[in-house]
């Protein structure tokens, strides 16, 4: 099978969040319920969005880290699935946000299953704290083994410290400053203000960013996403079946990745390996991409992706992101929901759901009839990108990526 065979043959038919009366946005610091409940809420909501009887779901793909989620068997049985043809429990991190969709699409494309549920569900703040990896090194004992014997002994643990090395090197080598990162953060927040789902919705200024406390230098507080309780889900099916369902399908044009090939340095993303192949597989040019949702656990990450995809040269993202270029009416609207940093951290998967909404034209915002796909484009209320046809979603550091297209 060549990558072209696969192009546009499968689609995302519905999406859903773990909303509840107490937690209408879905993203919170304390869901108050178990992870299975979160997963099934999101899954049912995705089925309802698609207009699909949950019992028709016959496959599932999930990803988890630190055993922080619920496996496919429990979720499929909670949905009342009658015939399970495909189930995959991926163990890993944000590298699977785009890949989980690719895997579901492959299962559908090859006829193994017809309606595959993809989900990421976690109590990432109130349960197993996802950003605190390595924090329990030693388990209370004074000694640590494995790779931690070369890292934790120097005080290394947690996402902000581990990824801070990439940011610092990128900044020192290319003259990027914290002020530059602040510009990225402010653009994301300006979109989040118009996203009722977002956890962070108060206005943010450059000064607010610069004055926020340092977590792990070079990261200030507002460079970092926050650990979140949430589940996000989608239904992947064939393009043909999706057209018979309720919502306008979003086609899966191409996808690559899951694991990473070596890159020369930590400031490089895996997009230098897979970016050109991805575009070729989708049959699109860089200039065709209308929306970019890159994994933004920290502000520098999507900036480096913008460079490694080729929108600008290394070190130039700091200029590229200014003057509204990544704004809703700019050349490359980015983090249109506020990104992981502001909407909340569903381990990258909410960025995929956001791309789907932008392509369907029903981004949830403050416009009175957003749910009918009626947008005002008044940027005080509206965060829908005009006429978005093609979106690029990239997982952490370019580990996997997909191109989605509206049908």
């Amino acid at each position, binding site marked *: 099978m060549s990558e072209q065979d696969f192009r546009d043959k499968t689609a995302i038919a519905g999406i859903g969040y773990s909303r509840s009366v107490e937690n209408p946005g879905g993203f919170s610091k304390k869901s108050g319920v178990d992870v299975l409940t979160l997963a099934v809420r999101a899954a049912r909501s995705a089925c309802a969005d698609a207009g699909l009887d949950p019992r028709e779901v016959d496959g599932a793909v999930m990803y988890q880290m630190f055993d922080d989620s619920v496996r496919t068997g429990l979720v499929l049985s909670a949905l009342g699935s009658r015939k399970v043809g495909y189930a995959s429990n991926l163990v890993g991190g944000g590298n699977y946000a785009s890949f989980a969709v690719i895997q579901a699409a492959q299962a559908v494309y090859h006829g193994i299953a017809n309606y595959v549920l993809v989900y990421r569900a976690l109590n990432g703040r109130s349960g197993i704290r996802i*950003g*605190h*990896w*390595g*924090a329990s*090194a*030693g388990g209370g004992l*004074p*000694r*640590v*083994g*494995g*790779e*931690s*014997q*070369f*890292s*934790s*002994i*120097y*005080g*290394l*643990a*947690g996402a*902000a*410290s581990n990824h*801070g*090395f*990439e940011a*610092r*090197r990128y900044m*020192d*080598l290319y003259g990027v400053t914290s002020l530059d990162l602040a510009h990225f953060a402010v653009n994301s927040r300006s979109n989040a203000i118009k996203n009722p789902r977002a956890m962070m919705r108060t206005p943010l200024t450059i000064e607010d960013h610069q004055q926020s*406390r*340092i*977590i*792990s*230098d*070079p990261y200030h507080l507002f460079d970092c996403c926050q650990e979140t309780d949430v589940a996000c889900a989608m239904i992947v099916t064939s393009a043909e079946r999706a057209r018979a369902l309720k919502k306008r399908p979003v086609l899966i044009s191409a996808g690559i990745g899951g694991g990473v090939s070596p890159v020369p340095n*930590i400031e490089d993303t895996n997009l230098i390996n897979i970016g050109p192949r991805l575009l070729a597989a989708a049959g699109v040019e860089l200039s065709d991409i209308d929306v970019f949702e890159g994994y933004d656990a920290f502000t520098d990450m999507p900036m480096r992706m913008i460079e490694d995809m080729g929108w600008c040269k290394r070190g130039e993202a700091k200029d590229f992101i200014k003057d509204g270029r990544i704004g809703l009416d700019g050349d490359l609207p980015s983090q249109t929901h506020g990104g992981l940093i502001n909407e909340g951290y569903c381990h990258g998967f909410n960025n995929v759901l956001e791309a789907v909404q932008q392509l369907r034209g029903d981004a949830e915002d403050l416009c009175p009839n957003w749910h009918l796909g009626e947008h005002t484009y008044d940027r005080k209320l509206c965060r829908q990108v005009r006429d978005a046809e093609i979106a690029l979603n990239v997982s952490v550091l370019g580990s996997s990526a997909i191109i989605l297209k509206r049908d």
Partner: protein
Amino acid sequence: MSTEEYAYLLPQPDSLTQPFWDAAKRHELVIQECGECGKLRHPPVGICAECGSEAIGWRTISGRGTLYSHVVVHQTALPSWSAAVPYNIVMVTPDEAPEIRLYGNVIDFDDSKLKVGLSLVAAFDDVTSDDTIIRWRVADADV
């Protein structure tokens, strides 16, 4: 200092890493190498990615290196380090093996002056009577 008195985490060597820590105790920095093709690698592993050999050797290197990147931790995820904030963590590339990156801390230096590219020298820190861990000092020329 005894193990009980040292406030931070200590290494738990295993069969693959014991020679590294034994050398540190002798105040030597060693890097594992393939016993067949000589390829250097870190952290230690049991099989060579270059040639597939399971023969293991160790090479003593100078202890001179370059600051590859760093963070200054103000909010730590490790409870045992919370009293130490802010503190730096560095990644160092040894001169003899620039593709290898070692974590460590730079001592006796102003964190705000840390910069990618600084020349560093290994500093063997005898933190307990049984343990020596490797930290780094900024080389005289760069101070």
